[in-house]
């Protein structure tokens, strides 16, 4: 499981945790996150996240 970070606001998407608020189940890999999902904090799209080292 990897973590991805928003380059704009620093929000971290952790694949292990998913994002249940938006219906993304724990364990959802980044590739399987819907293309139209946007950063819940600042609104940028998936392409503006960068992978960061797994913590």
């Amino acid at each position, binding site marked *: 499981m990897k973590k991805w970070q928003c*380059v*704009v*606001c*620093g929000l971290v998407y952790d694949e292990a945790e998913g994002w249940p*608020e*938006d219906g993304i189940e724990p364990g959802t890999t980044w590739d399987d996150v819907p293309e139209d999902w*946007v950063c819940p*904090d*600042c*609104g*940028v*799209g998936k*392409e*503006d996240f960068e992978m960061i080292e797994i913590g």
Partner: protein
Amino acid sequence: MNEQAPIVIVGTGLAGYTLAREIRKQDKDVRIVMVTADDGVSYSKPMLSTGFSKGKDAGSLAQAGTEAMAVQLQLELRTYTTVTGIDTNGHRLLLGDDSLAYSKLVLAWGADVIRLTIPGDGQERVFPINDLEDYRVFRKALKPGGRVAIMGAGLIGCEFANDLRNGGYEVEVIAPSDAVMPSLLPQAAANAVQKALEALGVRFHLETVVERVEPAGTGVTLFLANGEKLQADVVISAVGLRPRTQLARAAGIDTDRGVKVNRLLETSAPDVYALGDCAEVDGHVLLYVLPLMACARALAKTLTGEPTEVTYGTMPVMIKTPCCPTAVCPPPSGAEGSWDTEQDGTDVKALFKSPEGDVLGFAVTGRFALEKQALSKVIPPIHS
């Protein structure tokens, strides 16, 4: 012109680095030189108003140093380098006694904070915060638990007010408007944000201005036009931004509120482009993140051989006031219609509806803020 010359990007803020990153997605080899007046450290400006809430100081808000960026993006960085002019005919960027040839030049040098001229001898305690270095200086001047006065109740003023309260500071906000974020939010949403900030302990002094700032002990006394006197250790000036246009204008490039560009991000000079906070794109000056990202993506393609006009989707603005999460998508200026508001305490859902009932804009606060994505999908893009 000189095909061997590099693409030169002026500015290493979010616009410059995002563009460089996007160019590298298109082309691994094209030469890129970035020129910046500051240290070139990569950081995200929107994060400056979240430092206390996220427990980050200026150092930890820096995402990557110049060497890391130069390696990661395979580019040459010229730091502490001030641009003095542009020779658009000769395709050269003037750097004092030096100059730099470009094949394409991109202006991504941002906006200046508007500085008010306020009488009094307390100016050295007044801090504009426009970049990471400003933020570092401000944080250094701040003593734990101190008193901060913020001039301006716009997006930045409100975000800083919330963040500084989260950091345990006393916060006073002074602004001439009768509501917070008057140009961005409808009344009900503005009132909700103000109430939530007040509940957090922020004190507002609206419909008045600071007339004088005088030293008092280690801080200052602010004399307001309404007769009030406030004590503060430091003052933040957050009264707005103005796109930087001077150097472009001096070079004969068309400017208005910003450096004027078309949808291809072309200025009036050949091979000179602009994006981000300095740019007026097809008549729109949009000092937010989402337009900048869209411009960077389009421009990267244009610069690497695939001319691409920027198009904007619906771009809600997220206001980082965690005490009252807020998102807004203002209706087009001059649009006919009215606000339809549902409210429960500081939870507000305001929809701007046309006479035909179409939703043309929205503002959502508190628990309704969760609906921002769903709402964005039903709103026609206004700047497209």
